[in-house]
């Protein structure tokens, strides 16, 4: 069963149950009386007190003031997203104290996935050139726009790699040399998480509890086991010399709840033997955007999925083999993708407002590659 079918089935089942158990007549009556369901009211009294007081104050305002106050929850209107990134790369608390000062300049060219996932673009000295127009998949036309389109991108020298989501479910990525015919390139099932300057590829696949390393010629070099059955790697990174590998993984537990996410650290001689858990989340957190910089430090995005911390997207710089945090900072916005250049010195960060920012690993150099609203969902250089 495809992911799309499974989601459709789940929501259809929920709709059936709600239709059977929600009594519209009673709901209307309660609404007219301005009451909640009485059995729910008691446990919520304490939490509701503040709301009631707030509503009461609004009700006491003169009419003109009530008009000015507007609805308690404002109607839809154009607003600046709460997660708006700063104009410059994101962090007033960016790590810098432990990093060796970066010299040099960031790459002049980068590649991005935009156009709602249907356009892979090269931006060279500010000039965009579309490299690939990603077609919708024919597999699930009812969700065409979101069903099959690019969602990840990597650049290794002149070779472009881009991943597509979400059918087939394990992912698929394509590669070709920039300037050549994309149809003459290669493809592989799996999700490409990192590629080094020589073209070695680190690939995860949700149908297998491991990550695999492939050579530029396509042969499997090593694999990295992420533990017991059920665990699946979904992101990864390696050091410039491929001697250290970090993988993020998760699984669904026996109680059907999503277990915590973990980050494993591997040394090259540990391939196949299982790595060390170096970071573990609470249930409502996840890891993303793993990269390892030129100094061998692991960077990742710690996303709090609920609770007050959900407003913060936390950046962590850590030792990839021990998990010891070296620095922590706030990205200042919702990060949807993060990569690092071949030198391991310049991060390229894509935000959910479509903007692309860069920063040096010492935090001293920052910049904006694409403004908010540019529509990018992933970028690399």
């Amino acid at each position: 069963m495809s992911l799309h079918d499974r989601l459709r089935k789940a929501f259809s089942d929920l709709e059936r149950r709600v239709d059977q158990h929600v009594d519209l007549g009673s709901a209307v009556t309660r609404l007219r009386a301005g009451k909640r369901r009485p059995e729910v009211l008691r446990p919520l009294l304490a939490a509701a007190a503040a709301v009631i007081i707030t509503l009461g104050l609004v009700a006491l305002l003169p009419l003109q003031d009530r008009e000015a106050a507007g609805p308690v929850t404002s109607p839809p209107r154009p607003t600046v997203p709460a997660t708006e990134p700063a104009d410059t790369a994101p962090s007033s608390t960016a790590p810098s104290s432990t990093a060796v000062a970066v010299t040099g300049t960031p790459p002049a060219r980068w590649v991005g996935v935009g156009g709602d996932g249907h356009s892979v673009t090269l931006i060279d000295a500010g000039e965009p050139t579309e490299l690939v127009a990603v077609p919708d998949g024919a597999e699930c036309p009812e969700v065409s726009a979101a069903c099959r389109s690019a969602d990840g991108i990597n650049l290794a020298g002149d070779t472009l790699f881009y991943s597509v989501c979400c059918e087939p479910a394990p992912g698929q990525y394509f590669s070709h040399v920039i300037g050549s015919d994309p149809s003459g390139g290669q493809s592989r099932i799996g999700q490409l998480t990192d590629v080094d300057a020589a073209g070695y590829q680190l690939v995860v696949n949700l149908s297998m509890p491991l990550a695999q390393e492939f050579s530029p010629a396509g042969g499997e070099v090593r694999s990295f086991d992420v533990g017991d059955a059920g665990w699946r790697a979904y992101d990864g990174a390696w050091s410039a010399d491929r001697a250290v590998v970090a993988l993020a993984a998760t699984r669904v537990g026996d109680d059907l709840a999503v277990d915590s996410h973990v980050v494993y650290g591997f040394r090259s001689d540990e391939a196949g033997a299982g790595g060390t858990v170096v970071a573990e989340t609470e249930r409502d957190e996840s890891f993303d955007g793993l990269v390892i910089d030129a100094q061998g430090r692991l960077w990742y995005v710690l996303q709090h999925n609920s609770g007050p911390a959900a407003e913060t997207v936390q950046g962590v710089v850590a030792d990839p083999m021990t998990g010891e945090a070296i620095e922590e900072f706030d990205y200042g916005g919702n990060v949807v993708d993060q990569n690092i250049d071949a030198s391991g010195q310049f991060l390229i960060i894509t935000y959910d407002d479509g903007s692309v920012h860069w920063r040096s690993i010492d935090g001293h150099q920052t910049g904006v590659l694409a403004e908010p609203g540019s529509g990018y969902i992933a970028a690399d250089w």
Partner: protein
Amino acid sequence: MWSTVPVRRWGDAPTVEAILNFDDFFRAEYRKAVLLAYAVSGSYAAAEDIAQEAMLEAHRWWDRICRYDKPGAWLRRVTIQKASRRLRRRRSEAAAMDQMGALQLIPKGPGEVEAVFEALRSLPTRQRAAISLYYLDGYSVADTALALGCAEGTVKAHLHKGRRALARILGEGFEE
């Protein structure tokens, strides 16, 4: 460029949809609000309460809201906001209510269905809301953007990320 949400100004002439009275609006939208509230909050016990809070708010401001092109989009946005806030209190409040069977008006679904919603709740709130809107009503990306108050490209990004994460989480038993 922050948003492509079209907004009617106060005092604009009401559209055909806007001449619906509140009762019609309620009957058309309430169940959907309950569904959305559950998908976002993860609490069967709280879902109806959240939907009713959102409806109560719509009722209070109906003379304004009825002038919108799509009052339903306003309701969804308010429902998502309320459900997100409820999610934050879930451990101390709604989760406790879920364990009290007598209050569980909406019964749980089969295991494979519950697994989908459990996986859905592991996503960031915006991804969860985008996927819920998309699959609940067959919302288009444009309508989802309207309800979330963000640009269509942002919705696409949330859908991309969310679907990929779900495929990852629900990988067990996937038939390719």
